[in-house]
């Protein structure tokens, strides 16, 4: 499986907001899939500490992230001074999506488009620029 963007898994170590069984199943599927991946104990912590690894993650090309709400992930990277690129990033939400669906999305070849699911459109919406409330009034 060489046709894969990089994969980042967040273990969300410091709160019980991501269901444990979902985290475990996603991790089990990743570790048995024969692919390379990155895993961090807690993206929130990396962001809070302004850890340089976040910058390295955004600089490495296409990225698939298994973490939590895409809006939160996007602004955690931004807060760490490592804004996610507008394209080439897909975020899966372990707080609400089933583990099997997340794993399938993470592991599908780059040439296969994401399945049409509510969570995918959620992710896509987050990484598309919103009309900015900072813009001058029309």
């Amino acid at each position: 499986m060489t046709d894969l963007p990089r994969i980042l898994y967040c273990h969300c170590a410091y709160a019980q907001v991501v269901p444990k069984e979902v985290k475990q199943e996603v991790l089990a599927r990743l570790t048995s899939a024969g692919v390379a991946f990155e895993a961090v104990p807690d993206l929130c912590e990396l962001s809070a500490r302004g850890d340089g690894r976040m910058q390295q993650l955004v600089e490495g090309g296409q990225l698939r992230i298994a973490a939590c709400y895409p809006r939160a992930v996007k602004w955690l990277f931004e807060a760490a001074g490592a804004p996610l690129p507008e394209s080439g990033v897909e975020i899966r939400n372990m707080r609400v999506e089933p583990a099997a669906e997340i794993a399938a999305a993470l592991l599908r070849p780059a040439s296969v488009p994401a399945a049409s699911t509510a969570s995918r459109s959620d992710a896509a919406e987050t990484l598309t620029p919103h009309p900015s409330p900072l813009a001058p009034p029309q």
Partner: protein
Amino acid sequence: MITFAKNSLHVIVYEGEGSRPLDDRARCELVQALLEKDCSITSVRQRGPAQNGSRHEFSNTGMQTGVTLVLGRFESEQPEQAEDAKSGNQIRFLGIEGLATAEAVEQVESLRRQLCGEPARFWKPWFPVIDFNRCTNCMQCLSFCLFDVYGVSGDGKIKVQNQSNCKTDCPACSRVCPEVAILFPKYKAGPINGDVVDSEDVRREGMKVDISALLGGDIYSALRDRSARAKSRFSKERDEDRALKERLRCLAKLQQQMDVPPEVLASLPSLDEIRRRSEEAKARAQAALDAASRTAAESATKPDASVPSSLAPRPSPLAPQ
């Protein structure tokens, strides 16, 4: 300059060329145990020099820190220590052949202490994150927070300045934000946890602001007035129990409305201190807004100047009506 969290070790679980693969269960257990010991991990699986994840490519794509520890069931003797030719990072190797997961993790822990010192100080997983797609830079959060969590950046934008001052489980600033632009990623419910903001959320937040306006536009003034009224009643009636009940009722109401943990209310400073901090925060917020307006006005007089959207003037909620 890139800085890395002190004391955090980056571990590569290496199963590429020259290292025998782990079985699936052992790999999963090892990765999970290391994550729970606060290590970030790169799992390298594929074999062959041209494949993604090979040792060669890892240095271009993986997460690198000052110290990297490579774990593997190495087929040949590894040097104890090496240096990445490209990055200059120190690389250590640890053979885990025949080790149970717990033993491997114990050895990693021991090496971590040796390489990185004692574990980092406790980190509090609770802090606000600003969604700048929604934020209008109104500075309500800065004015509202009594714990100096917020500040203003050099270009006049609101920023989270002192994360560690934030009170665990208190999302009150998020609740006063009229644009639902403040997230607490570890919060239980949306949209504060980062879930999509829908029109109902915005309407609800708007109503809260209107309620604040009805109270006189300044929640602190309202609280002061209420306190003064309570004092007056207290002096007339000399009823300590009744005054105490009234205060508890007000606090309970505030706590419910904003989901503020009781510990936060218990840690609030004195009324005088609250007043002082509130005035200071408001002054800082107003100064930032004034500076942004001046910059925007100056830019507007220059025909070719483009005004950064973040500095565009907008009505200040702090300005007198």
